[in-house]
């Protein structure tokens, strides 16, 4: 991609930079963070931001920047894992429905409709409550709810692609259904799915932090953005930086993935970038309002 193309797509640049920064912190937090997330200093409880502790300390005297850096690994692992699982399941189901149609399409899409009949966060919460809290169950619950978005997009794309010449030609020479689905159709519908997945990571991060905020997600002492924000509420009046730092971290990360998704959409569908209606043309994820 040329520099000029990047200049024309500031969303992609900003989003890419933000996401790269967060991923860098999430991967290399062990080297970057000057403390360990459990390292307590009771003499410096709720210390304000300063040279020793860039973002201050929490009520146990633990370095907030360190905990947020370690929390990045937890949050991104859950979000990326859930999004990957949802994308793989949803794309597979959508491709199958769009290409095969008939009874398979009817049955699977009714299941999709039923899952979409629930407010997504409520269903995620119910699943986590039933399965039990913890990062793995949280990722499973998120994937179990959000795969439907990918199924709808993949089905719609597969429906329009299945009548194209290259698919008809593959059928005519006897290529197997599985090969047609994953070797021929998938690469041609991957663009919108990639954009959806990028936006989906942001949605998953918000969902994860929301559930951890309520005490249903990642359990202490594992560092978590949502839990840090929730705990900071107790010290909101006297020491607001605890909640503020966690909230800003979540917002910047989600904004990064949203910008990256927008930028990718403009890049992969130049008509979307040129036309004013292009934005939000893609059936986007049901963004949770939290």
């Amino acid at each position, binding site marked *: 991609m040329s520099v000029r193309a990047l200049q024309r797509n500031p969303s992609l640049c900003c989003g890419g930079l933000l996401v790269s920064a967060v991923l860098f912190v999430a991967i290399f937090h062990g080297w970057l963070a000057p403390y360990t997330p459990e390292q307590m200093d009771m003499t410096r409880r709720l210390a304000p931001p300063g040279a020793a502790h860039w973002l201050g300390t929490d009520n146990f005297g633990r370095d907030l920047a360190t905990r947020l850096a370690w929390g990045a690994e937890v949050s991104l692992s859950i979000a990326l894992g859930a999004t990957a699982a949802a994308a793989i399941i949803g794309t597979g189901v959508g491709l199958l429905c769009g290409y095969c149609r008939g009874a398979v399409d009817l049955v699977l899409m009714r299941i999709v409709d039923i899952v979409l009949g629930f407010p997504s966060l409520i269903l995620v919460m119910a699943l986590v409550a039933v399965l039990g809290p913890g990062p793995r169950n949280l990722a499973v619950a998120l994937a179990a709810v959000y795969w439907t978005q990918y199924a709808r997009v993949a089905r719609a794309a597969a429906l329009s692609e299945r009548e194209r010449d290259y698919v008809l030609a593959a059928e005519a020479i006897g290529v197997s259904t599985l090969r047609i689905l994953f070797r021929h159709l998938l690469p041609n519908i991957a663009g919108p799915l990639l954009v959806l997945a990028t936006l989906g990571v942001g949605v998953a991060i918000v969902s994860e932090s929301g559930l951890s905020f309520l005490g249903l997600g990642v359990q202490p002492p594992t560092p978590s953005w949502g839990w840090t924000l929730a705990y900071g509420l107790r010290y909101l009046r006297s020491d607001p930086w605890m909640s503020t730092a966690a909230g800003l971290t979540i*917002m910047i990360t989600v904004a990064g993935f949203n910008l990256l998704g927008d930028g990718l959409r403009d890049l992969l569908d130049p008509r979307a970038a040129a036309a*004013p209606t292009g934005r939000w043309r893609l059936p986007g994820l049901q963004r949770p*309002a939290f």
Partner: protein
Amino acid sequence: MRYLLTRLGLFVPMLAGVVSVVFLLVHLIPGDPARVLLGEDASPQAVAQLRHNLGLDLPLPSQFLRYLGHLLHGDLGVSMFQNAPVLDLVLARLPATLELAAFAIVVSVCLGVSLGCAAAVFHGSALDLLCLVFAQLGISVTVFWLGILLMLAFSVELHWLPAIGRGVPLSSAFAAALEGRPAALFDSLAHLAMPAVALGMQGAAIICRLVRSGMLEALASDYVRTARAKGVHPFAVTFRHALRNALLPAVTMIGWQFGNLLGGAVLTEGIFGWPGLGQLAVGAFSQRDLPLMQGIVLTFALVFGLVTLATDLAYGLIDPRIGSR
């Protein structure tokens, strides 16, 4: 009429599916649900009693028929921890949540449509850029953090608005205002302001982007050009011709957004001490109060389904082409 019947015809099987999923929730618990709920130290008698109370000692089809029969009689079971009928608990809290969600939708629509319009009319200006930044931030900010920021600013620092609680229910406050006692209404609105803004901000950002792009397309279309050429007042061109068409995608989004608001209400209610269904849900989910969980999830899904149905019908009314297809 045909459109209405089609939508209703699609709603019924969807509702049946939702009921089935809610019923199956209890069976997703790994292992014996009664043992998991009571803990490893529970006596076999207590486990057997809970299995009987939850109907888990029956074959699965019988359990489902029993659950369905109870549902049709308006019996959602009894809360395991509050020892009260689930329906009573849900109905006592539902109005507060609906009130909050409705106000959040009002905030979303008013803010989103006005900013989207302004951004499109002044396309390419600093105002347009400002609206786009607002939309990006609004989509990225989490409702619980925004709630905390609002509380910090307007309650802790400025002391303008009450930090927690609901105040007088809005219907009673309106009645009191009509009788010449407006203080209750002001109190009610003061309690509603921050939770509704926090909850509605993301919807406002999404609607703003939708309306902006819809308006830009409409303003560049032939019928708007024709209206301008005929000398129609710019105000009428913008609001009567362009906005009406630009609102169509936003109407669909408003229906979808309501589902998100119901989810977001769980978090907002927790922050602002709003005594709604969300707070009840958090308690039920934390304690694994299965009958209450099932009742709450079913209620949320039912409300969401009805709002989606109403949105679909409204869409048919706003755009007659859809109804006639």
